[in-house]
C-alpha cells in the first residue's frame, strides 16, 4: 500500500509535466499576445513589457524558467493583476471553487444515496419509480442548462433567488443545485443497482435465516457492501463536478478558479492559463488517488501491490 501510494504520487510528476508542456505549447500557439488592446500600445512599450516578463526569450528558456518556478512553488506573474502573482490569484479563487464543488458533492451524495437506497429497499413501489424517474431525467441534463431553467423559475418568475454573485447563502442555492443534480442522479442509479445486487447475496439470506432484524441486515451487511461499487465511481464523478463547475461559475458570475481560466484564455494571460490548468489537473488526480485509497480501506479484498 505504501509503495503503491508512493508510485502513484511519483507518477503525478510526469503527468503534471506533460500537461504543463502541452498547455505551454498550445497557449503560445494561440494567435495574439497579452498586450493586444483595443488601443494599440507603442512598440517600445510592448518591447519593455516583454522584457519585463521574460517574453522576449526563446520559448524553451521560458518553459524552463516556468518549470524551475513551479518546483519552488512559484506559478509566475499574471499580466491582468499587476500587484499579485498567479499563486495569490488562484488561492483567492480556491475557497470559492472548493465551497461550490464541496457543497454540490455533499448534496449529490446525500440525495443520490437516499434515493438509491430507498428505491432498492422498496423495489417496484412508487418510491422506486419516483427515484428512477429522477435518476433518468437528471442523468443527462447538463448543469448549465439546468442552471438556466432554475433561473427562469426562481429568479425571473418567482423572484425568490438572485441570479448571480457570491457570498450569501441565497446566492449559493441555484449554482449548488444545478451542479449537484447530475451526479446525484448518477449516484442514485449506482446505489440502487448495487444495493439490489447485495440483497441477492447468500450472506444476506443467511442473515435473514438466523433471524437478524431488517435494521441489522441493512445497517450491518447491505450498506457496507453496497458502498464498494459506489466508491469506484466517486472519483470520476468528483472530477466531473470540478470541471463542470467552471461553466456554472461563468453562468452565475462566481469568482472561482474556473472564471480565472476563461479570463486567462481571452486575455492571453499565460500565467493564469498555466496556473488554472495545473490546478485542475492536480485536484482531479489527487481526488482520484484518494478514492482509490479509500477503496482499499473499505474493501479488504482490494490489494495494491
Amino acid at each position, binding site marked *: 500500500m505504501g509503495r503503491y501510494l508512493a508510485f502513484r504520487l511519483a507518477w503525478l510528476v510526469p503527468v503534471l509535466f506533460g500537461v504543463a508542456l502541452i498547455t505551454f505549447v498550445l497557449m503560445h*500557439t494561440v494567435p495574439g499576445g497579452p498586450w493586444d488592446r483595443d488601443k494599440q500600445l507603442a512598440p517600445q512599450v510592448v518591447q519593455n513589457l516583454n522584457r519585463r516578463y521574460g517574453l522576449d526569450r526563446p520559448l524553451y528558456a521560458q518553459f524552463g524558467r516556468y518549470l524551475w518556478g513551479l518546483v519552488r512553488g512559484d506559478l509566475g506573474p499574471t499580466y491582468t493583476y499587476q500587484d499579485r502573482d498567479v499563486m495569490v490569484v488562484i488561492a483567492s479563487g480556491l475557497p470559492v471553487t472548493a465551497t461550490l464543488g464541496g457543497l454540490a458533492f455533499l448534496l449529490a451524495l446525500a440525495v443520490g444515496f437516499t434515493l438509491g437506497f430507498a428505491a432498492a429497499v422498496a423495489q417496484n413501489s412508487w418510491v422506486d419509480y419516483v427515484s428512477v424517474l429522477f435518476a433518468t431525467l437528471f442523468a443527462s441534463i*447538463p448543469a448549465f442548462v439546468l442552471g*438556466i431553467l432554475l433561473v427562469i423559475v426562481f429568479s425571473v418568475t418567482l423572484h425568490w433567488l438572485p*441570479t448571480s454573485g457570491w457570498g450569501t447563502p441565497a446566492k449559493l442555492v441555484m449554482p449548488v443545485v444545478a451542479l449537484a443534480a447530475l451526479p446525484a442522479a448518477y449516484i442514485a442509479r449506482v446505489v440502487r*443497482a448495487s444495493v439490489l445486487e447485495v440483497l441477492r447475496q447468500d450472506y444476506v439470506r443467511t442473515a435473514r435465516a438466523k433471524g437478524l432484524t431488517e435494521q441489522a441486515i441493512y445497517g450491518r451487511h447491505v450498506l457496507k457492501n453496497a458502498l464498494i461499487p459506489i466508491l469506484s465511481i466517486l472519483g470520476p464523478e468528483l472530477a*466531473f463536478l470540478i470541471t463542470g463547475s467552471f461553466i456554472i461559475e461563468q453562468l452565475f458570475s462566481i469568482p472561482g478558479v474556473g472564471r480565472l481560466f476563461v479570463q486567462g484564455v481571452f486575455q492571453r494571460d499565460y500565467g493564469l492559463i498555466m496556473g*488554472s*490548468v495545473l490546478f*485542475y489537473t492536480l485536484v482531479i488526480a489527487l481526488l482520484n488517488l484518494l478514492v482509490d485509497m479509500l477503496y482499499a480501506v473499505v474493501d479488504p479484498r482490494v490489494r495494491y501491490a
Partner: protein
Amino acid sequence: MSTGQGAAAQGRPVAVPRVRAPRSFWQQSTRRLLKNRLAMVGLAVVLLYLIIAIVAPLVSPYDPAKQNYDAILLGPTGGHPLGTDGLGRDSLSRLVFGARTSLAVGLFTQLIVLTVGIPVGLVAAFSGRRSDNLLMRFVDIVFAFPDLLLIILLRAIFGGSIFMVFLAIGLVNWVIMARMVRGQALSLKEQEFVLAAKAIGVPWHSTLIRHVLPNALGPVVVLVAFGVPRAIFAEAALSYIGIGVTPPTPSWGTMVQDGYSVIFATPYPVLFPAVAIAVVMLAFTFLGDGLRDALDPRHAGLGKMR
C-alpha cells in the same frame, strides 16, 4: 420438415421440432434493443432530430439569420411559433438550423474519435510492451487534462470555422475510445479463436480486422452513442462561453448565450434552446443505455458510462 408433413398427412397433430437458424449476436442485440421501451423513445427522438436537421431549410419558417427590428423579443405568437430573439430573428428557424450545427458537431467529432481512437487502441494492444506503454502513458496524460479546458485552449488556437470546433472536441475525446479499444483487444488477444487464427498462420493485420475488431464493435457502438451527446454538450458549452461556432451560424449554445442576456425581458429565447439541448441529450442517453444493455448484457443496469 418431412416428418411433420408426413404426420400431417396422416391427420395427427404433431410436435414440429423447432428448427430455427441460430440468431447471430447482432440479431439478438437488435431484439433486445427493440424490446427496451425507453431506448425506443430515445431512438424516436433521435430520428426526429436527424430528420429536422437534414431538412432544416424546408421546415424553418424564416431565414434564421434574417433580422427584423420591428419584431424583437416576441413571445410565441402565430407568426413566430417560438417567438423571436433580441435581433428579431425567428427562434424556431434558428432552433431548426441549430440542430444542424449540433448534429454536425456530434457526428464529425465521433468520426475523429473513431479514426484516431480505434487504430491507437489496437496498435497499443498488439504492438508489444514498449510502444503500448508509450502510447498509454500519452493517453493517460491527455486523459488527466481537464477536458473542457483542453477543448477551450484548442478552440482558442484554431479559431475560425466550425471544422475547428469538430477538431478541438475530437482531439480531446479520442483517448476514451483508445483506452476502451485497447482493453477489449487485450482480452480478445488471449481468446482461443485469436490464438487459433495465429496458429494457422493468418497474418496479424487480418486477424485484427477479421477477428478482433468485429468482436470489439459492440462497446465501440455504445461509446459512440454516448460520445455524440458529449460532443453536443461541448459545442453548446463552447458557444455559450462565446468561443464556439462563429455568430452567423445558428447554434443552440449561442442561442442560450444570447437569450440569457435578455432573460428578464422574456425567458423564451433562452428557454427553447435550453430545453432542446436537454431533450436531445436525454434521447441519446436513453438510446445509449439501451444499446449498452443490448450489446453488452454483462454490464446491464450498472449506470452509464462516461
